[in-house]
């Protein structure tokens, strides 16, 4: 079993969730727990004073191969180059079924596309309040059945 450095969870949290207004208080502990429990098949990271990037293969949810899981600091050119090199190495030598790319890292979305990977799904996250407000704004209120709609 691969040991995951505990402080890597903080980096993961910063990249993936920090600044998201929907996240509830105290969420870091949960992220840390989930992250440290992940069964990594391989894990490499790029660190200077702080972590700048990591790449890890984990068991894919459908059990049919491995997955790449990564974050990186978009401001660092070195980290980005390192990540590209690592991805290229993996994709050239191994069959990878699923690749997850976080939305902020649009250059990598195109990168996997260039490698011939197809879109399996887009996951979205929304505030329920905002969705309800926008639905009422964009669609006629009469769509809401009177017995449900409270005005």
């Amino acid at each position, binding site marked *: 079993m691969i040991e995951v450095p505990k402080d890597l969870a903080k980096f993961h949290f910063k990249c993936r969730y920090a600044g998201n207004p929907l996240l509830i208080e105290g969420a870091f502990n949960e992220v840390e727990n989930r992250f440290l429990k992940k069964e990594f098949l391989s894990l490499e990271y790029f660190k200077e004073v702080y972590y700048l990037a990591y790449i890890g293969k984990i068991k894919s949810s459908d059990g049919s191969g491995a997955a790449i899981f990564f974050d990186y600091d978009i401001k660092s050119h070195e980290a980005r180059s390192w990540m590209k090199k690592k991805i290229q190495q993996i994709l050239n030598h191994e069959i990878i079924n699923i690749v997850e790319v976080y939305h902020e890292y649009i250059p990598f979305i195109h990168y996997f596309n260039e490698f011939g990977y197809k879109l399996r799904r887009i996951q979205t996250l*929304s505030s329920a309040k905002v969705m309800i407000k926008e639905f009422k704004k964009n669609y006629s209120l009469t769509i809401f059945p009177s017995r449900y709609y409270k005005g």
Partner: protein
Amino acid sequence: MRDVCDVVEILRHEFTRNPHHGPNNKSFLVEMKTMIEKEIEKDHCQYVFVNSLERVIGHFGAFLTEDPLWGRLSGFHFMLHESIQRTGLLSFMFSILLTELEDRDVLVVVGSTTHKAIIKNFGKLKRKPFIYTFSNNEDLLGLKEFSKYLDL
């Protein structure tokens, strides 16, 4: 039970027609059937079968969970038979589910899709893409197919 079997049949039919919406293999469909059966047993379940006179021709529902990361969280699922698609029913179903969210003080909604009609409406409902998942499965569609709906 027969209703659930009808739903699974709709899923099989749709996933055969549009393999990029989901796999039509037996093990996945069995998994879906078990999931629906478990869902409809829950107290909080909002799960509706759309019936014609003879059989189920669609279903929609939402799950509700207390998530340690996001708080009270929900997500939707819909599937309509080909014969009743593009009839405007989806907006009606959406309005029912959104009202349920309001009543139950849901904070966050998550969902994942490759359905072009849903992606097209992302912006209108302020749904923010969070994670893109790629696969080397040849049945799926390339990013280019979605480019006019996605700000990439």
